[in-house]
């Protein structure tokens, strides 16, 4: 979510110009399969396991992970979506809007919840998500899965499952989804 938001948001807004693809769709798929295995291994199965995708970039990935985990573990696990706009600490620094809805149609109490996002950057989205989740109940544990960890953390937050560690410059942008991962720049001004 963080990446997409930055990409679109005014006043920092601009046009995303891709420079190079760092993962193909197949690469992404392989990384997610590995993450799924790690999640099952770490949680000793898929009982009491739930995924929550962070709006908007993490949602697609969470649903893909669910499919993979269900296939491996031969059991359905619940998936929710979480929008953290109302919990962000940077309201008024730049436009923040609930771009999408929160839907957690299950009780997270005593569950192992895996937060899923596309790109981990400063860690502020995850911080907001942790606070938001605490309003939904007391999870047994909360873990973090991201497709890309691009560094530049501003908070003491560390992912449990990473698709790829991608060193970046602060000014670069990363677009990560199931079709692949692209690194590029944002050019000022709108088309």
């Amino acid at each position: 979510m963080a990446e997409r938001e930055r990409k679109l948001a005014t006043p920092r807004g601009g046009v995303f110009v891709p420079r190079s693809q760092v993962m193909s769709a197949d690469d992404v798929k392989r990384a997610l399969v590995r993450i799924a295995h790690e999640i099952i291994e770490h949680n000793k199965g898929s009982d009491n396991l739930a995924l929550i995708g962070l709006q908007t970039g993490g949602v697609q990935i969470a649903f893909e992970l669910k499919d993979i985990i269900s296939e491996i573990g031969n059991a359905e696990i619940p998936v929710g979506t979480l929008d953290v706009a109302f919990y962000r600490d940077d309201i008024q620094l730049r436009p923040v809007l609930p771009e999408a809805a929160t839907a957690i149609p299950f009780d997270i109490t005593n569950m192992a919840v895996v937060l899923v996002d596309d790109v981990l950057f400063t860690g502020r989205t995850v911080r907001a998500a942790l606070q938001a989740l605490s309003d939904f109940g007391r999870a047994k544990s909360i873990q973090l899965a991201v497709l890309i960890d691009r560094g530049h953390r501003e908070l003491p937050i560390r992912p449990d499952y990473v698709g790829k560690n991608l060193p970046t410059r602060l000014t670069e942008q990363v677009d990560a989804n199931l079709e692949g991962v692209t690194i590029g720049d944002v050019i000022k001004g709108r088309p």
Partner: protein
Amino acid sequence: MSPLQNALVSIGDLNRDDISHIMKLSAIFSEVLRRDIPKVPTLRGKTMAMVFSEDSTRTRTSFEIAAKKLSMDILSLNSSQSSMKKGESLKDTLANLHAIGADGFVIRHSSSGVPTQASTWMTVPVINAGDGCHEHPTQALLDCYTLIERFDTPGNYTTDGTILNCFNGMTVTIVGDVEHSRVARSLVIMLDMLGAKTTLCGPGTLMPRHVNKWPVRVSYHLDEVLPETQVCYILRLQNERGSGTYLPSIREYAMNWGIDSKRASLLPETAVIMHPGPINRGVELAGEIADSSRSLILNQASNGVAVRMAVIYLLLANPGDLTLNTGNFVPIRQANRMTDEPAS
């Protein structure tokens, strides 16, 4: 550009797209209200001044709860016990509240135009919570939300604007004391903007003089308009009108413009009853109709909080460009559990 620059004093401050945005945001906040801990830290540290110069139960509590669910602090001022009574000018009162730390104002006043005046004096947001006989914009917005909840066809909510399609051609009859009703003035503007067909019905003394220039049809005979009414919106009759020169008697009003079971039976099957409250049961609306399954009155009350959260959020959180808000928006029908339960 955000639809709400620095104030919401009239529904006329908004256009159709703005209303559509507010409806979507309201749906999102109604989800927040269903959480175990229905409160978000969004506006932590901000203070909302509630300036109410008139008695109000539901509007005031609704605004207070909305602000509190957004983690705001409330600075409450009842001007009947304030320095306004001591002859301090309204501008001075508000400037002092701002100096004390108010980040926004919710104003209800018995005089029309006070929120408009306040918005020209203040640099912080002003929300009109009902001014004299002028407007009550958040009431119109929550009525809009309530009607979408009831009449929107599933699948219509995905893109901008279409969430309001259910209003196209919707026949709304507003019954009662239009002349003194701020709710009616906001509704008429909004319904016209949304493409609904509005009819005003009531005694001649309670119709505004220049109502012929309003975008409405006027009728003085309720029984004639009810059969073609989808939404029967009943206004409160202030009892003092009956003792003045407006009406011969409350009884005569109730007999001709009150909605009882017999009159309600003239409405189409699917028609709904709305009322901004508080109801004079047995005057403008019979108790059994107010409590019937076609009444949306409790839905109106419960939707008020989410809609007011949306308005407060837009004005105080400064979320910027709303055109970013694309797609993936939760269906209102799913978001609000009230629809699944019949009104009690």
